[in-house]
């Protein structure tokens, strides 16, 4: 699942921005990585914890579907805190 980048340059910039946003959201939430990974796994996530860590440290790109699940997990976990 550690996808090599296959999109064009414009998409790469967009993906970088999205990844940067996710990284910041993760930092701001102060979540343990394990908790995020567990939740992400629960909603169908497929990459391993190390790849998720690399993604959140902006060192790796993930396939679009996985990116969506990571951001969804971050969002839904903030709902948990609000409840």
């Amino acid at each position, binding site marked *: 699942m550690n996808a090599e980048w296959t999109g064009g340059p414009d998409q790469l910039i967009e993906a970088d921005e999205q990844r940067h946003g996710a990284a910041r959201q993760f930092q701001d939430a102060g979540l343990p990585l394990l908790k995020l990974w567990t939740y992400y796994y*629960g909603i169908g996530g497929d990459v391993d914890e190390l790849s998720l860590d690399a993604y959140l440290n902006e060192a790796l790109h993930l396939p679009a579907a996985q990116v969506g699940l990571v951001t*969804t997990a971050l969002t839904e976990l903030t*709902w948990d805190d609000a409840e």
Partner: protein
Amino acid sequence: MAHNDALTTADEYQDLLLNTPEFSKFLLGLATISASQLGGDGAPVECTVTVERDGALSTFAYSSEEGRRLDETQYAFGTGPCLTALREQHTVLIEDLQLDQRWAPYTYAVAKLGVRSVLAVPIHTDPLSQAALNCYAHTVHAFGPDTVKLVEDQAASMSRILRLALRLHAPDVFPEDLRAALKSRAVVDAAVALVMLQARGSRDGALELLQAAAKSGNRRIQEIAQEIVARGSFSTGPGRGEI
């Protein structure tokens, strides 16, 4: 018959592990099973199980309120036969508490509670944790060689199930979170499978569809997945139609 008994006990342990979601309740079950097996011939025996993890986190379980006090006393003194059995991994037998000076402040305190003899046996676990099965009796010389052997056998048969329990209930993960994640994942996977089949689509496509449905309704993926599974199909929710 001894063989048969051992089998029954192993089954009992397994049922206990499968049916108890909390580690402390699991230990309580172990202590209760031991007490019921030892106290068979009239003289009641209190049993406790003590577990230390990473040298710090400890859980103890007791077959009675009295057992709790006995164990707590030991923790308060920071020393005692059970802690010695646990930390040094060998059997400790005190045949007459009043004649034993090895753990003096502790032994005076439990003697006041009416305890006369103590047997503590280590339960072998993993390198990160230590455990012991402890028995207290109100008479001196309550634990003869046969009983010591019996308790040692019992501790040995607990070893495997306790190692399993320690893995299942690892202290640094969140047991409830893990169970919730497993349950959620099962529902999401079932929904994804259904959507893929109906759309003759890819897994990624199905996941994206779930995400879009969740996003447009401001709802959780898991809720959307539950609906899909309950209904047996993905009906076009508000805002989203084709895959």
